[in-house]
């Protein structure tokens, strides 16, 4: 009896590892193919499109890729400006709003929090027509500001920051700073923000990645080639001009993924912890 149960335990264990390893391969395989094919010639890819080892055509692919409309450096810089701006707006103003919700006792506090919960789920997509018309009328299309400033109001981030502050903020610190004559705004910037650093870091990562990956809004607002973000650049690879240049397409895709890979593998511990904490998000 004992032996049998051990055996079934053993089989169960094998199944578990088999499934986990299969899923892990499923995560890696597409990206692996992408990276190796980025170094292979179109002819090699047509002969056999799977290769686990890289080839020697990387420079040729780079030349073909950059010879057409794809400009990864420009996309990278534009995306960097937008994502950095949006991230700064999100974390700073969400912290400020969360602090107002936790530290002060004002009459509309509870209704305001209820309101934030209520609007948390409104996706930008369903309001895009009005947003586009509004921006068109004030001549703000092909401008980065309409992609940065809306980040000031990020209800989900406020919610997360509030939960964090509720758990960590002791009002005594605030009171003693007041006795020392510190002004409220000074207290927030010099005392509260440092306390919130862990929450700010987590939310900054998610806000940055979310903004970096956003396709819908930039696609609507930015029509000038010089203003294209990384995801719009990527969408050019789907066009006819790269139809037969397989190696270059894989290379272009790789270039957009590499910065994310670097961020992810450097910060994966914090990112996973952040997802677990912010389970009540997005």
């Amino acid at each position: 009896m004992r032996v049998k149960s051990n055996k079934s335990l053993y089989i169960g264990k094998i199944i578990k590892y088999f499934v986990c390893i299969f899923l892990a391969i499923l995560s890696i395989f597409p990206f692996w193919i992408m990276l190796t094919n980025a170094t292979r010639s179109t002819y090699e890819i047509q002969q056999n499109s799977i290769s686990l080892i890289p080839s020697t055509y990387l420079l040729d692919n780079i030349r073909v890729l950059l010879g057409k409309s794809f400009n990864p450096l420009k996309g990278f810089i534009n995306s960097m400006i937008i994502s950095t701006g949006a991230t700064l707006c999100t974390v700073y103003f969400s912290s400020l709003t969360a602090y107002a919700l936790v530290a002060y006792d004002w009459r509309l506090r509870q209704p305001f929090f209820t309101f934030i919960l209520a609007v948390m789920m409104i996706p930008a997509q369903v309001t895009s027509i009005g947003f586009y018309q509004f921006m068109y009328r004030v001549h703000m299309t092909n401008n980065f500001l309409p992609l940065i400033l809306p980040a000031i109001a990020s209800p989900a981030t406020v919610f997360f920051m509030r939960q964090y502050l509720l758990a960590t903020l002791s009002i005594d610190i605030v009171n003693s700073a007041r006795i020392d004559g510190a002004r409220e705004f000074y207290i927030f910037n010099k005392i509260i923000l440092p306390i919130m650093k862990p929450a700010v870091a987590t939310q900054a990562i998610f806000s940055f990645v979310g903004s970096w990956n956003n396709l819908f809004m930039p696609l609507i607002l930015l029509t000038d080639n010089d203003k294209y973000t990384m995801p719009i650049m990527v969408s050019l690879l789907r066009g006819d001009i790269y139809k037969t240049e397989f190696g270059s397409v894989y290379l272009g895709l790789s270039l957009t993924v590499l910065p994310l890979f670097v961020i992810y593998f450097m910060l994966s511990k914090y990112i996973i912890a952040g997802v677990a904490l912010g389970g009540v998000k997005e």
Partner: protein
Amino acid sequence: MRRKGLSYAKYGYIFCIPFVLAFLIFSLYPIIYTAVIGFTDLKGLGRTDFKILENPFQNFITIIKNASFQQSLKNTIIIWVVNFIPQILIALLLTAWFTNHRNKIKGQGAFKVLFYMPNIITAATIAILFYSLFGYPKGPVNDLFMMLGITDEPIYFLIQKSTARGIVSFIQFWMWYGYTMIVLISGVLGMNPELFEASEIDGATSAQTFFFITLPNLRTILLYTLITSLIGGLNMFDIPRLFLLGGPDNATLTTSVFIYNQAFSGSYMYNRAAAASMIMFVIIAILSGMIFYIMRDKDAAQLKKFQKKQQKALRAAEKAGRRADG
């Protein structure tokens, strides 16, 4: 003391001003503007002037009767369901395995990192990567299938409706099951450990513990995951837009792609796109209302209910008293 507390209250309002202003300008105004456009004749590139239609609901009627819109709504729901069922099942299975104390899986951290990885990569990139992977007649997936002997002939995945839709569902599944798993695991870790200890002492098997302790306690988080995933699914844009541009034969046309096509690719029918947006907005608002109901402060809600009940009882008692007096 009380007066001092009051004098600080104004900072509560002041610190919320940026959020409120940004919300009014960039969210509320566009919502109202979209709603208004839905009732007008606004179409054509570069136009901003409009007038309300004779029959204000004309656009809404046109959209609801539009075969492409109906198709896109159907596609969106099919793609979401086909992605969500395996997603939640795999996530639950992995949660059960990863939170099992008795035989731990080694390398959990690495597995979590790899399972979550696709979620962080640009969806636009993933859409085009999969377009390349499923190439015909030569493409990595076809080559792999023939190597493994799954098929003898290359399959033209991208031209068949069912496979095209299936691949979009698969991409969604592949991008999101890791996220769902991490959320569920954190839900299990947040439960009272005494529950698990007690069930272990009572001699429950791992499966019994999972089905009778873990699963019922995960109910709220499961419901939350379901609704947020549904809202996300209703907004699916990047993948269906770039993977097959809505094709073949509108099989991967989702509502977001439909709205985008109406307004921004060729036809510039802002009014119809706005009407379709508002229809989606109402659906999403109803779903959000459900989340809001789940997440509301339960204690506060209960307290309110209790107070109401007491007041009612009080009034009833008064009434009874008066009647007795009379």
